[in-house]
Protein backbone atom coordinates (compact mmCIF):
# COMPACT_ATOMS: atom_id res chain seq x y z
CA UNK A 1 0.00 0.00 0.00
CA UNK A 2 1.43 3.35 -0.96
CA UNK A 3 1.47 6.19 1.50
CA UNK A 4 -1.50 8.47 1.00
CA UNK A 5 -0.62 11.91 -0.24
CA UNK A 6 -1.33 14.71 2.22
CA UNK A 7 -4.67 16.13 1.31
CA UNK A 8 -6.81 18.78 2.92
CA UNK A 9 -9.73 17.07 4.59
CA UNK A 10 -13.05 18.62 5.48
CA UNK A 11 -12.79 21.64 7.78
CA UNK A 12 -9.69 20.57 9.66
CA UNK A 13 -10.79 16.94 9.49
CA UNK A 14 -13.07 17.11 12.47
CA UNK A 15 -13.45 13.38 12.60
CA UNK A 16 -10.59 11.55 11.08
CA UNK A 17 -10.60 8.96 13.82
CA UNK A 18 -12.95 6.05 14.26
CA UNK A 19 -16.56 6.24 13.28
CA UNK A 20 -16.99 8.53 10.33
CA UNK A 21 -20.43 7.63 9.19
CA UNK A 22 -23.00 8.72 6.69
CA UNK A 23 -26.56 9.65 7.55
CA UNK A 24 -27.84 6.55 5.78
CA UNK A 25 -25.49 4.41 7.82
CA UNK A 26 -26.80 6.01 10.98
CA UNK A 27 -30.44 5.55 10.08
CA UNK A 28 -30.21 1.96 8.87
CA UNK A 29 -29.97 0.02 12.16
CA UNK A 30 -32.74 2.04 13.76
CA UNK A 31 -34.97 1.62 10.72
CA UNK A 32 -34.40 -2.12 10.94
CA UNK A 33 -35.35 -2.07 14.61
CA UNK A 34 -38.52 -0.11 13.83
CA UNK A 35 -39.41 -2.24 10.82
CA UNK A 36 -38.91 -5.40 12.83
CA UNK A 37 -41.56 -4.25 15.28
CA UNK A 38 -44.19 -3.83 12.59
CA UNK A 39 -43.27 -6.70 10.31
CA UNK A 40 -42.20 -9.62 12.48
CA UNK A 41 -44.68 -9.55 15.31
CA UNK A 42 -44.16 -13.19 16.22
CA UNK A 43 -40.51 -12.78 17.09
CA UNK A 44 -40.61 -9.64 19.23
CA UNK A 45 -39.18 -11.56 22.17
CA UNK A 46 -36.21 -12.58 20.09
CA UNK A 47 -35.78 -9.02 18.83
CA UNK A 48 -35.78 -7.75 22.41
CA UNK A 49 -33.11 -10.28 23.35
CA UNK A 50 -30.92 -9.22 20.45
CA UNK A 51 -31.20 -5.55 21.42
CA UNK A 52 -30.27 -6.36 25.01
CA UNK A 53 -27.17 -8.15 23.79
CA UNK A 54 -26.40 -5.22 21.50
CA UNK A 55 -26.44 -2.94 24.52
CA UNK A 56 -24.25 -5.34 26.48
CA UNK A 57 -21.79 -5.60 23.60
CA UNK A 58 -21.83 -1.82 23.27
CA UNK A 59 -20.82 -1.49 26.91
CA UNK A 60 -17.94 -3.88 26.31
CA UNK A 61 -16.90 -1.89 23.25
CA UNK A 62 -16.35 1.16 25.44
CA UNK A 63 -14.06 -0.66 27.85
CA UNK A 64 -12.39 -3.19 25.58
CA UNK A 65 -12.63 -1.59 22.16
CA UNK A 66 -11.87 2.02 22.97
CA UNK A 67 -9.94 1.95 26.22
CA UNK A 68 -8.22 -1.37 25.54
CA UNK A 69 -9.25 -2.92 28.87
CA UNK A 70 -9.01 -6.62 28.04
CA UNK A 71 -11.54 -8.14 30.42
CA UNK A 72 -13.42 -11.38 30.75
CA UNK A 73 -15.43 -10.04 33.64
CA UNK A 74 -18.27 -8.13 32.05
CA UNK A 75 -20.79 -10.84 32.89
CA UNK A 76 -20.39 -9.74 36.52
CA UNK A 77 -21.91 -6.36 35.67
CA UNK A 78 -24.59 -7.76 33.40
CA UNK A 79 -25.60 -10.36 35.96
CA UNK A 80 -25.46 -7.92 38.85
CA UNK A 81 -27.70 -5.54 36.94
CA UNK A 82 -30.18 -8.33 36.23
CA UNK A 83 -30.28 -9.52 39.83
CA UNK A 84 -30.45 -5.98 41.20
CA UNK A 85 -33.41 -5.14 38.98
CA UNK A 86 -35.14 -8.44 39.75
CA UNK A 87 -34.62 -8.32 43.50
CA UNK A 88 -35.65 -4.66 43.60
CA UNK A 89 -38.95 -5.46 41.91
CA UNK A 90 -39.64 -8.31 44.32
CA UNK A 91 -38.62 -6.67 47.58
CA UNK A 92 -38.82 -2.92 47.09
CA UNK A 93 -40.91 -1.55 44.29
CA UNK A 94 -42.44 -2.79 41.07
CA UNK A 95 -41.78 0.44 39.23
CA UNK A 96 -39.65 -0.60 36.22
CA UNK A 97 -37.96 2.78 35.73
CA UNK A 98 -37.03 3.03 39.40
CA UNK A 99 -35.74 -0.54 39.35
CA UNK A 100 -33.75 0.15 36.23
CA UNK A 101 -32.05 3.16 37.79
CA UNK A 102 -31.39 1.16 40.94
CA UNK A 103 -29.68 -1.54 38.88
CA UNK A 104 -27.60 1.02 37.03
CA UNK A 105 -26.55 2.64 40.28
CA UNK A 106 -25.58 -0.66 41.89
CA UNK A 107 -23.50 -1.82 38.93
CA UNK A 108 -21.86 1.56 38.51
CA UNK A 109 -20.84 1.46 42.15
CA UNK A 110 -19.59 -2.09 41.77
CA UNK A 111 -17.67 -1.12 38.63
CA UNK A 112 -16.12 1.81 40.45
CA UNK A 113 -15.04 -0.23 43.46
CA UNK A 114 -13.80 -3.30 41.60
CA UNK A 115 -12.11 -1.11 38.99
CA UNK A 116 -10.37 0.89 41.68
CA UNK A 117 -8.99 -2.35 43.08
CA UNK A 118 -7.75 -3.93 39.88
CA UNK A 119 -7.15 -1.29 37.20
CA UNK A 120 -3.54 -0.67 38.19
CA UNK A 121 -2.68 -4.15 36.94
CA UNK A 122 -2.34 -5.08 33.29
CA UNK A 123 -2.22 -8.06 30.99
CA UNK A 124 -2.70 -11.58 32.29
CA UNK A 125 -2.95 -10.45 35.89
CA UNK A 126 -5.82 -8.12 35.07
CA UNK A 127 -7.50 -10.79 32.99
CA UNK A 128 -7.25 -13.23 35.88
CA UNK A 129 -8.62 -10.73 38.35
CA UNK A 130 -11.68 -10.13 36.17
CA UNK A 131 -12.10 -13.87 35.83
CA UNK A 132 -11.91 -14.31 39.58
CA UNK A 133 -14.47 -11.54 40.14
CA UNK A 134 -16.94 -13.27 37.84
CA UNK A 135 -16.29 -16.56 39.63
CA UNK A 136 -16.94 -15.01 43.03
CA UNK A 137 -20.12 -13.37 41.79
CA UNK A 138 -21.29 -16.66 40.30
CA UNK A 139 -20.71 -18.46 43.58
CA UNK A 140 -22.53 -15.79 45.52
CA UNK A 141 -25.43 -15.97 43.07
CA UNK A 142 -25.42 -19.73 43.44
CA UNK A 143 -25.36 -19.83 47.21
CA UNK A 144 -27.40 -16.85 48.34
CA UNK A 145 -30.50 -18.83 47.46
CA UNK A 146 -32.78 -16.77 49.65
CA UNK A 147 -32.06 -13.69 47.61
CA UNK A 148 -31.27 -15.03 44.14
CA UNK A 149 -33.02 -18.37 43.95
CA UNK A 150 -29.68 -20.12 43.38
CA UNK A 151 -29.51 -22.29 40.29
CA UNK A 152 -33.30 -22.35 39.95
CA UNK A 153 -33.08 -18.72 38.97
CA UNK A 154 -34.87 -15.68 40.28
CA UNK A 155 -38.62 -15.97 39.80
CA UNK A 156 -41.64 -13.93 40.67
CA UNK A 157 -40.62 -10.62 39.16
CA UNK A 158 -43.65 -8.38 38.74
CA UNK A 159 -43.70 -4.99 37.15
CA UNK A 160 -46.05 -2.03 37.16
CA UNK A 161 -46.78 -0.38 33.84
CA UNK A 162 -44.08 2.01 32.65
CA UNK A 163 -45.02 5.54 33.74
CA UNK A 164 -48.20 3.88 34.99
CA UNK A 165 -49.42 3.58 31.41
CA UNK A 166 -47.62 1.00 29.30
CA UNK A 167 -48.16 -2.46 30.69
CA UNK A 168 -45.63 -5.21 30.03
CA UNK A 169 -47.89 -7.29 27.79
CA UNK A 170 -47.68 -10.99 27.15
CA UNK A 171 -46.61 -10.49 23.54
CA UNK A 172 -43.66 -8.30 24.40
CA UNK A 173 -44.70 -5.13 22.57
CA UNK A 174 -43.92 -2.90 25.52
CA UNK A 175 -40.70 -4.71 26.34
CA UNK A 176 -39.54 -4.34 22.75
CA UNK A 177 -40.17 -0.62 22.56
CA UNK A 178 -38.84 -0.01 26.05
CA UNK A 179 -35.62 -1.86 25.20
CA UNK A 180 -35.27 -0.02 21.90
CA UNK A 181 -35.61 3.33 23.64
CA UNK A 182 -33.09 2.47 26.33
CA UNK A 183 -30.69 1.17 23.70
CA UNK A 184 -31.08 4.39 21.71
CA UNK A 185 -30.37 6.57 24.74
CA UNK A 186 -27.25 4.60 25.64
CA UNK A 187 -26.14 4.62 22.04
CA UNK A 188 -26.31 8.40 21.86
CA UNK A 189 -24.35 8.63 25.11
CA UNK A 190 -21.73 6.19 23.84
CA UNK A 191 -21.47 7.93 20.50
CA UNK A 192 -20.90 11.31 22.07
CA UNK A 193 -18.52 9.81 24.59
CA UNK A 194 -16.20 8.20 22.09
CA UNK A 195 -16.08 11.31 19.95
CA UNK A 196 -15.38 13.60 22.86
CA UNK A 197 -11.89 14.64 23.96
CA UNK A 198 -12.33 12.10 26.76
CA UNK A 199 -12.93 9.38 24.19
CA UNK A 200 -9.90 10.44 22.21
CA UNK A 201 -7.76 10.22 25.31
CA UNK A 202 -9.04 6.69 25.94
CA UNK A 203 -8.12 5.76 22.43
CA UNK A 204 -4.67 7.14 23.15
CA UNK A 205 -4.38 5.11 26.34
CA UNK A 206 -5.24 1.96 24.42
CA UNK A 207 -2.53 2.69 21.88
CA UNK A 208 0.18 3.77 24.28
CA UNK A 209 -0.45 4.38 27.95
CA UNK A 210 3.11 5.57 28.54
CA UNK A 211 2.77 8.27 25.94
CA UNK A 212 -0.43 9.47 27.54
CA UNK A 213 1.23 9.72 30.93
CA UNK A 214 3.98 11.73 29.28
CA UNK A 215 1.46 14.33 28.13
CA UNK A 216 -0.04 14.52 31.61
CA UNK A 217 -2.98 12.12 31.35
CA UNK A 218 -4.12 10.61 34.64
CA UNK A 219 -4.39 7.18 33.03
CA UNK A 220 -5.76 5.32 36.02
CA UNK A 221 -8.56 7.81 36.61
CA UNK A 222 -9.56 7.80 32.96
CA UNK A 223 -9.70 4.01 32.89
CA UNK A 224 -11.67 3.97 36.11
CA UNK A 225 -14.16 6.44 34.67
CA UNK A 226 -14.82 4.46 31.51
CA UNK A 227 -14.86 1.18 33.43
CA UNK A 228 -17.58 2.57 35.68
CA UNK A 229 -19.61 3.90 32.77
CA UNK A 230 -19.23 0.62 30.92
CA UNK A 231 -20.31 -1.28 34.04
CA UNK A 232 -23.40 0.90 34.41
CA UNK A 233 -24.29 0.25 30.79
CA UNK A 234 -23.82 -3.51 31.14
CA UNK A 235 -25.93 -3.38 34.30
CA UNK A 236 -28.62 -1.57 32.37
CA UNK A 237 -28.61 -4.37 29.80
CA UNK A 238 -28.93 -6.88 32.61
CA UNK A 239 -31.85 -4.96 34.10
CA UNK A 240 -33.58 -4.93 30.71
CA UNK A 241 -33.15 -8.67 30.47
CA UNK A 242 -34.65 -9.21 33.94
CA UNK A 243 -37.58 -6.94 33.12
CA UNK A 244 -38.23 -8.33 29.64
CA UNK A 245 -38.22 -12.00 30.65
CA UNK A 246 -39.31 -11.54 34.30
CA UNK A 247 -36.67 -14.10 35.14
CA UNK A 248 -32.97 -14.13 35.98
CA UNK A 249 -31.04 -17.35 35.39
CA UNK A 250 -27.80 -18.03 37.19
CA UNK A 251 -26.07 -18.30 33.81
CA UNK A 252 -26.05 -14.49 33.50
CA UNK A 253 -23.07 -14.58 35.85
CA UNK A 254 -21.21 -17.33 34.06
CA UNK A 255 -17.94 -17.03 32.25
CA UNK A 256 -19.72 -18.16 29.11
CA UNK A 257 -21.81 -14.99 29.17
CA UNK A 258 -18.62 -12.94 29.13
CA UNK A 259 -17.37 -15.10 26.29
CA UNK A 260 -20.52 -14.74 24.24
CA UNK A 261 -20.65 -10.95 24.50
CA UNK A 262 -16.99 -10.74 23.53
CA UNK A 263 -17.66 -12.94 20.53
CA UNK A 264 -20.48 -10.68 19.42
CA UNK A 265 -18.36 -7.57 19.73
CA UNK A 266 -15.41 -9.07 17.90
CA UNK A 267 -17.58 -10.52 15.16
CA UNK A 268 -19.14 -7.16 14.50
CA UNK A 269 -15.94 -5.23 14.95
CA UNK A 270 -14.59 -3.23 17.87
CA UNK A 271 -14.42 0.54 18.06
CA UNK A 272 -17.29 1.05 15.68
CA UNK A 273 -20.30 1.02 18.02
CA UNK A 274 -22.49 -0.31 15.21
CA UNK A 275 -20.28 -3.40 15.21
CA UNK A 276 -22.17 -4.46 18.33
CA UNK A 277 -25.44 -4.38 16.36
CA UNK A 278 -24.16 -6.53 13.55
CA UNK A 279 -22.29 -8.90 15.83
CA UNK A 280 -25.24 -9.58 18.13
CA UNK A 281 -27.64 -10.02 15.22
CA UNK A 282 -25.34 -12.36 13.31
CA UNK A 283 -24.65 -14.33 16.45
CA UNK A 284 -28.35 -14.89 17.02
CA UNK A 285 -29.02 -15.80 13.40
CA UNK A 286 -26.16 -18.29 13.40
CA UNK A 287 -27.30 -19.73 16.69
CA UNK A 288 -30.87 -20.18 15.46
CA UNK A 289 -29.79 -21.67 12.17
CA UNK A 290 -27.18 -24.04 13.51
CA UNK A 291 -29.28 -25.13 16.48
CA UNK A 292 -31.62 -26.73 13.96
CA UNK A 293 -28.80 -28.89 12.68
CA UNK A 294 -27.60 -29.94 16.13
CA UNK A 295 -27.98 -28.33 19.53
CA UNK A 296 -24.23 -28.00 19.93
CA UNK A 297 -23.32 -27.08 16.41
CA UNK A 298 -23.62 -23.35 17.11
CA UNK A 299 -20.84 -23.51 19.65
CA UNK A 300 -18.65 -25.10 17.02
CA UNK A 301 -19.53 -22.46 14.44
CA UNK A 302 -18.97 -19.63 16.90
CA UNK A 303 -15.58 -21.07 17.78
CA UNK A 304 -14.60 -21.30 14.13
CA UNK A 305 -15.84 -17.76 13.52
CA UNK A 306 -13.72 -16.50 16.40
CA UNK A 307 -10.60 -18.22 15.18
CA UNK A 308 -11.14 -17.04 11.63
CA UNK A 309 -11.81 -13.48 12.77
CA UNK A 310 -8.57 -13.34 14.73
CA UNK A 311 -6.47 -14.93 12.02
CA UNK A 312 -7.89 -13.35 8.92
CA UNK A 313 -10.08 -10.41 9.81
CA UNK A 314 -8.73 -7.96 12.32
CA UNK A 315 -11.58 -5.46 12.25
CA UNK A 316 -14.56 -7.82 12.41
CA UNK A 317 -17.45 -7.96 9.97
CA UNK A 318 -17.76 -4.18 9.69
CA UNK A 319 -14.19 -4.15 8.41
CA UNK A 320 -15.25 -6.70 5.81
CA UNK A 321 -18.04 -4.35 4.78
CA UNK A 322 -15.58 -1.48 4.55
CA UNK A 323 -13.25 -3.53 2.42
CA UNK A 324 -16.12 -4.46 0.14
CA UNK A 325 -17.15 -0.84 -0.18
CA UNK A 326 -13.58 0.12 -0.94
CA UNK A 327 -13.34 -2.52 -3.62
CA UNK A 328 -16.61 -1.48 -5.19
CA UNK A 329 -16.25 2.25 -5.04
CA UNK A 330 -12.48 2.56 -4.88
CA UNK A 331 -13.05 4.88 -1.96
CA UNK A 332 -11.07 4.98 1.21
CA UNK A 333 -11.95 5.97 4.67
CA UNK A 334 -10.59 9.38 5.51
CA UNK A 335 -7.42 9.35 7.53
CA UNK A 336 -5.60 6.79 5.44
CA UNK A 337 -5.79 3.01 5.23
CA UNK A 338 -6.48 0.96 8.28
Amino acid at each position, binding site marked *: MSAPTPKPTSPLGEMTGPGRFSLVGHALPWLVIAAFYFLVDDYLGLGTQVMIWVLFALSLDLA*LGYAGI*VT*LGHAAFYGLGAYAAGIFSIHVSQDPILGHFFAIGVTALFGLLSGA*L*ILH*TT*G*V*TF*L*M*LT*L*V*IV*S*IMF*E*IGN*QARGLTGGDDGLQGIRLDPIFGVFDFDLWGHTAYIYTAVVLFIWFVIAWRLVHSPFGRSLDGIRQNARRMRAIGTPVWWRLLAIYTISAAMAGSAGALSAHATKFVGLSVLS*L*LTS*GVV*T*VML*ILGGTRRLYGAFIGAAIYYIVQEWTAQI*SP*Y*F*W*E*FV*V*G*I*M*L*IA*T*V*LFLDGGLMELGDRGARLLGGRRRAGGGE
Partner: protein
Amino acid sequence: MFSFALTILLDGLSYGMVLFLISVGLTITMGLMRVVNLAHGSFAMIGGYVAGYLTQHGMNFFLAVGAAVIVSGLLGAVVETTVYRPLYRKGELAQVLLTIGLVFVATAGVTEVFGAFPYNVKMPEYLTQPVDIGFRTYPAYRLFLIAVGAVVAAVLWYVIDGSILGARLRAAVDNARMARAVGMNVNVLFTGTFVVGCGLAGLGGAIGAGVMAMEPSYALKYLRLFLIVVIVGGEGSFKGSLVAALALGVIDTLGKYFFSQAASYLLYAAVFALLLWRPQGLLPAKSAA
Protein backbone atom coordinates in the same frame (compact mmCIF):
# COMPACT_ATOMS: atom_id res chain seq x y z
CA MET B 1 -7.97 -36.88 64.39
CA PHE B 2 -4.52 -37.51 62.98
CA SER B 3 -5.85 -40.03 60.52
CA PHE B 4 -8.58 -37.61 59.45
CA ALA B 5 -6.03 -34.89 58.81
CA LEU B 6 -3.89 -37.29 56.85
CA THR B 7 -6.86 -38.33 54.75
CA ILE B 8 -7.59 -34.74 53.84
CA LEU B 9 -3.95 -34.20 53.08
CA LEU B 10 -3.84 -37.24 50.78
CA ASP B 11 -7.10 -36.25 49.09
CA GLY B 12 -5.76 -32.77 48.56
CA LEU B 13 -2.37 -33.93 47.31
CA SER B 14 -3.82 -36.36 44.79
CA TYR B 15 -6.18 -33.68 43.50
CA GLY B 16 -3.30 -31.20 43.44
CA MET B 17 -1.13 -33.60 41.47
CA VAL B 18 -3.76 -33.79 38.73
CA LEU B 19 -3.91 -30.00 38.66
CA PHE B 20 -0.13 -29.94 38.47
CA LEU B 21 0.07 -32.42 35.58
CA ILE B 22 -2.40 -30.41 33.57
CA SER B 23 -1.13 -26.95 34.47
CA VAL B 24 2.62 -27.43 34.24
CA GLY B 25 2.55 -27.34 30.45
CA LEU B 26 0.45 -24.20 30.56
CA THR B 27 2.76 -22.44 32.96
CA ILE B 28 5.83 -23.11 30.88
CA THR B 29 4.24 -22.20 27.57
CA MET B 30 2.75 -19.02 29.00
CA GLY B 31 6.10 -18.07 30.47
CA LEU B 32 7.99 -18.99 27.35
CA MET B 33 5.76 -17.77 24.56
CA ARG B 34 3.94 -14.98 26.37
CA VAL B 35 0.64 -16.28 25.05
CA VAL B 36 -2.56 -16.10 27.04
CA ASN B 37 -3.65 -19.65 26.38
CA LEU B 38 -7.18 -20.35 27.55
CA ALA B 39 -7.46 -23.52 25.48
CA HIS B 40 -5.05 -25.62 27.49
CA GLY B 41 -7.79 -27.50 29.33
CA SER B 42 -9.09 -28.73 25.99
CA PHE B 43 -6.01 -30.89 25.57
CA ALA B 44 -6.57 -32.47 28.97
CA MET B 45 -10.19 -33.03 28.02
CA ILE B 46 -9.28 -34.68 24.74
CA GLY B 47 -6.79 -36.90 26.54
CA GLY B 48 -9.49 -37.91 28.98
CA TYR B 49 -11.99 -38.72 26.25
CA VAL B 50 -9.48 -40.71 24.24
CA ALA B 51 -8.58 -42.77 27.30
CA GLY B 52 -12.26 -43.16 28.13
CA TYR B 53 -13.16 -44.35 24.64
CA LEU B 54 -10.32 -46.84 24.46
CA THR B 55 -10.85 -48.31 27.93
CA GLN B 56 -14.57 -48.65 27.31
CA HIS B 57 -13.70 -50.62 24.19
CA GLY B 58 -11.54 -53.02 26.11
CA MET B 59 -8.08 -51.56 25.81
CA ASN B 60 -5.65 -51.87 28.71
CA PHE B 61 -5.79 -48.77 30.92
CA PHE B 62 -2.11 -47.94 30.65
CA LEU B 63 -2.01 -48.38 26.90
CA ALA B 64 -5.06 -46.17 26.65
CA VAL B 65 -3.41 -43.49 28.78
CA GLY B 66 -0.33 -43.71 26.57
CA ALA B 67 -2.50 -43.25 23.51
CA ALA B 68 -4.18 -40.27 25.19
CA VAL B 69 -0.81 -38.65 25.79
CA ILE B 70 0.23 -39.18 22.18
CA VAL B 71 -3.03 -37.90 20.73
CA SER B 72 -2.98 -34.79 22.91
CA GLY B 73 0.66 -34.14 22.07
CA LEU B 74 0.15 -34.58 18.32
CA LEU B 75 -2.89 -32.35 18.42
CA GLY B 76 -0.77 -29.82 20.27
CA ALA B 77 1.82 -29.95 17.51
CA VAL B 78 -0.80 -29.35 14.84
CA VAL B 79 -2.46 -26.49 16.69
CA GLU B 80 0.82 -24.82 17.66
CA THR B 81 2.18 -24.76 14.15
CA THR B 82 -1.06 -23.68 12.50
CA VAL B 83 -3.01 -21.31 14.75
CA TYR B 84 -0.70 -20.36 17.61
CA ARG B 85 2.29 -19.18 15.58
CA PRO B 86 0.54 -16.19 14.06
CA LEU B 87 -0.70 -15.35 17.57
CA TYR B 88 2.69 -14.65 19.11
CA ARG B 89 2.88 -11.31 17.37
CA LYS B 90 -0.68 -10.29 18.22
CA GLY B 91 -2.03 -8.69 21.33
CA GLU B 92 -3.61 -10.26 24.38
CA LEU B 93 -7.11 -9.72 23.10
CA ALA B 94 -6.47 -11.72 19.94
CA GLN B 95 -4.93 -14.48 22.04
CA VAL B 96 -7.85 -14.58 24.43
CA LEU B 97 -10.37 -14.71 21.61
CA LEU B 98 -8.68 -17.32 19.51
CA THR B 99 -8.01 -19.65 22.39
CA ILE B 100 -11.58 -19.24 23.67
CA GLY B 101 -12.65 -20.10 20.13
CA LEU B 102 -10.60 -23.29 20.36
CA VAL B 103 -12.35 -24.15 23.63
CA PHE B 104 -15.73 -23.75 21.94
CA VAL B 105 -14.69 -25.94 19.03
CA ALA B 106 -13.30 -28.63 21.33
CA THR B 107 -16.39 -28.55 23.55
CA ALA B 108 -18.76 -28.80 20.62
CA GLY B 109 -16.69 -31.53 19.00
CA VAL B 110 -16.62 -33.62 22.15
CA THR B 111 -20.36 -33.18 22.70
CA GLU B 112 -21.08 -34.15 19.12
CA VAL B 113 -18.98 -37.30 19.27
CA PHE B 114 -19.40 -38.49 22.85
CA GLY B 115 -22.64 -36.88 24.00
CA ALA B 116 -23.39 -34.28 26.63
CA PHE B 117 -23.14 -36.55 29.65
CA PRO B 118 -20.18 -37.30 31.90
CA TYR B 119 -17.90 -39.82 30.27
CA ASN B 120 -16.25 -42.62 32.17
CA VAL B 121 -12.61 -43.70 32.03
CA LYS B 122 -12.57 -47.36 33.09
CA MET B 123 -9.90 -48.03 35.64
CA PRO B 124 -8.39 -51.47 36.21
CA GLU B 125 -9.71 -53.41 39.21
CA TYR B 126 -6.70 -52.97 41.45
CA LEU B 127 -6.88 -49.19 41.17
CA THR B 128 -10.51 -48.97 42.17
CA GLN B 129 -10.00 -50.94 45.36
CA PRO B 130 -8.91 -49.53 48.68
CA VAL B 131 -5.55 -50.55 50.07
CA ASP B 132 -4.34 -50.69 53.63
CA ILE B 133 -1.92 -47.87 54.41
CA GLY B 134 -1.27 -48.73 58.02
CA PHE B 135 -3.74 -46.67 59.99
CA ARG B 136 -6.68 -47.03 57.62
CA THR B 137 -7.62 -48.14 54.14
CA TYR B 138 -7.35 -45.61 51.35
CA PRO B 139 -8.31 -45.70 47.64
CA ALA B 140 -5.42 -47.09 45.60
CA TYR B 141 -6.40 -44.76 42.76
CA ARG B 142 -5.56 -41.66 44.78
CA LEU B 143 -2.19 -43.07 45.78
CA PHE B 144 -1.56 -43.87 42.12
CA LEU B 145 -2.25 -40.22 41.21
CA ILE B 146 0.21 -39.00 43.82
CA ALA B 147 2.84 -41.45 42.61
CA VAL B 148 2.47 -40.49 38.94
CA GLY B 149 2.52 -36.80 39.79
CA ALA B 150 5.62 -37.21 41.94
CA VAL B 151 7.45 -39.16 39.23
CA VAL B 152 6.56 -36.59 36.53
CA ALA B 153 7.59 -33.74 38.81
CA ALA B 154 10.91 -35.42 39.57
CA VAL B 155 11.63 -36.04 35.89
CA LEU B 156 10.70 -32.47 34.94
CA TRP B 157 12.76 -31.12 37.79
CA TYR B 158 15.76 -33.09 36.59
CA VAL B 159 15.28 -32.00 32.98
CA ILE B 160 14.64 -28.35 33.68
CA ASP B 161 17.24 -27.85 36.39
CA GLY B 162 19.89 -30.30 35.30
CA SER B 163 20.04 -30.60 31.53
CA ILE B 164 21.29 -28.37 28.75
CA LEU B 165 17.81 -28.43 27.26
CA GLY B 166 16.47 -27.14 30.56
CA ALA B 167 19.08 -24.41 30.67
CA ARG B 168 18.04 -23.30 27.20
CA LEU B 169 14.43 -23.38 28.23
CA ARG B 170 15.09 -21.26 31.30
CA ALA B 171 17.15 -18.83 29.26
CA ALA B 172 14.36 -18.51 26.72
CA VAL B 173 11.73 -17.97 29.41
CA ASP B 174 13.93 -15.31 30.93
CA ASN B 175 14.53 -13.49 27.68
CA ALA B 176 13.20 -14.87 24.42
CA ARG B 177 14.73 -12.13 22.30
CA MET B 178 18.17 -12.73 23.76
CA ALA B 179 17.79 -16.47 23.22
CA ARG B 180 16.96 -15.85 19.60
CA ALA B 181 19.88 -13.49 19.25
CA VAL B 182 22.38 -16.10 20.43
CA GLY B 183 21.14 -18.46 17.76
CA MET B 184 18.67 -20.67 19.57
CA ASN B 185 16.02 -22.11 17.32
CA VAL B 186 13.16 -20.70 19.32
CA ASN B 187 10.49 -22.07 16.98
CA VAL B 188 11.54 -25.66 17.57
CA LEU B 189 11.84 -24.99 21.28
CA PHE B 190 8.33 -23.52 21.32
CA THR B 191 6.76 -26.38 19.42
CA GLY B 192 8.58 -28.99 21.47
CA THR B 193 7.60 -27.41 24.76
CA PHE B 194 4.04 -26.98 23.63
CA VAL B 195 3.78 -30.61 22.55
CA VAL B 196 5.19 -31.89 25.84
CA GLY B 197 2.87 -29.56 27.74
CA CYS B 198 -0.16 -30.80 25.84
CA GLY B 199 0.93 -34.42 26.28
CA LEU B 200 1.18 -33.91 30.03
CA ALA B 201 -2.22 -32.27 30.02
CA GLY B 202 -3.55 -35.32 28.20
CA LEU B 203 -1.96 -37.52 30.86
CA GLY B 204 -3.49 -35.47 33.65
CA GLY B 205 -6.90 -35.48 31.99
CA ALA B 206 -6.80 -39.24 31.41
CA ILE B 207 -5.64 -40.47 34.79
CA GLY B 208 -7.34 -37.66 36.69
CA ALA B 209 -10.79 -38.40 35.27
CA GLY B 210 -11.74 -40.02 38.57
CA VAL B 211 -11.18 -36.68 40.34
CA MET B 212 -12.18 -34.25 37.65
CA ALA B 213 -14.86 -36.01 35.65
CA MET B 214 -14.88 -35.83 31.86
CA GLU B 215 -17.74 -33.81 30.45
CA PRO B 216 -17.97 -31.40 27.53
CA SER B 217 -17.78 -28.35 29.78
CA TYR B 218 -14.53 -29.64 31.31
CA ALA B 219 -12.25 -27.28 29.37
CA LEU B 220 -14.12 -24.17 30.47
CA LYS B 221 -15.17 -25.37 33.91
CA TYR B 222 -11.66 -26.07 35.18
CA LEU B 223 -9.98 -23.32 33.18
CA ARG B 224 -9.87 -20.96 36.12
CA LEU B 225 -8.22 -23.59 38.31
CA PHE B 226 -5.46 -24.13 35.75
CA LEU B 227 -4.99 -20.40 35.34
CA ILE B 228 -4.91 -19.90 39.10
CA VAL B 229 -2.11 -22.46 39.34
CA VAL B 230 -0.18 -20.67 36.61
CA ILE B 231 -0.68 -17.16 37.91
CA VAL B 232 -0.26 -17.96 41.56
CA GLY B 233 2.82 -20.07 40.92
CA GLY B 234 4.30 -17.43 38.67
CA GLU B 235 4.22 -17.64 34.87
CA GLY B 236 6.96 -19.87 33.57
CA SER B 237 7.91 -21.13 37.01
CA PHE B 238 7.86 -24.93 37.16
CA LYS B 239 8.44 -25.12 40.90
CA GLY B 240 5.89 -22.42 41.50
CA SER B 241 3.24 -24.39 39.62
CA LEU B 242 3.98 -27.51 41.66
CA VAL B 243 3.67 -25.62 44.94
CA ALA B 244 0.58 -23.74 43.77
CA ALA B 245 -1.16 -26.85 42.43
CA LEU B 246 -0.59 -28.87 45.61
CA ALA B 247 -1.60 -25.95 47.81
CA LEU B 248 -4.70 -25.37 45.72
CA GLY B 249 -5.58 -29.06 45.93
CA VAL B 250 -5.21 -29.19 49.70
CA ILE B 251 -6.93 -25.86 50.35
CA ASP B 252 -9.84 -26.71 48.07
CA THR B 253 -10.26 -30.11 49.74
CA LEU B 254 -10.05 -28.56 53.21
CA GLY B 255 -12.60 -25.98 52.20
CA LYS B 256 -14.99 -28.64 50.96
CA TYR B 257 -14.76 -30.51 54.26
CA PHE B 258 -15.15 -27.57 56.57
CA PHE B 259 -16.96 -24.78 54.77
CA SER B 260 -18.78 -26.57 52.01
CA GLN B 261 -20.96 -23.50 51.41
CA ALA B 262 -18.36 -20.81 51.26
CA ALA B 263 -15.47 -22.91 49.97
CA SER B 264 -15.31 -21.65 46.44
CA TYR B 265 -15.52 -18.01 47.17
CA LEU B 266 -13.08 -18.19 49.99
CA LEU B 267 -10.69 -19.72 47.51
CA TYR B 268 -11.35 -17.08 44.88
CA ALA B 269 -11.12 -14.31 47.40
CA ALA B 270 -7.74 -15.64 48.51
CA VAL B 271 -6.52 -15.75 44.92
CA PHE B 272 -7.84 -12.25 44.34
CA ALA B 273 -5.95 -10.90 47.33
CA LEU B 274 -2.81 -12.77 46.35
CA LEU B 275 -2.88 -11.37 42.82
CA LEU B 276 -3.21 -7.85 44.11
CA TRP B 277 -0.42 -8.43 46.59
CA ARG B 278 2.00 -10.23 44.26
CA PRO B 279 1.00 -9.82 40.60
CA GLN B 280 4.04 -11.84 39.51
CA GLY B 281 3.00 -14.90 41.49
CA LEU B 282 4.62 -16.62 44.45
CA LEU B 283 7.76 -17.88 42.76
CA PRO B 284 8.28 -15.75 39.66
CA ALA B 285 10.52 -17.27 36.99
CA LYS B 286 11.81 -13.99 35.64
CA SER B 287 15.02 -12.74 37.10
CA ALA B 288 14.37 -9.07 36.41
CA ALA B 289 11.50 -7.40 38.15
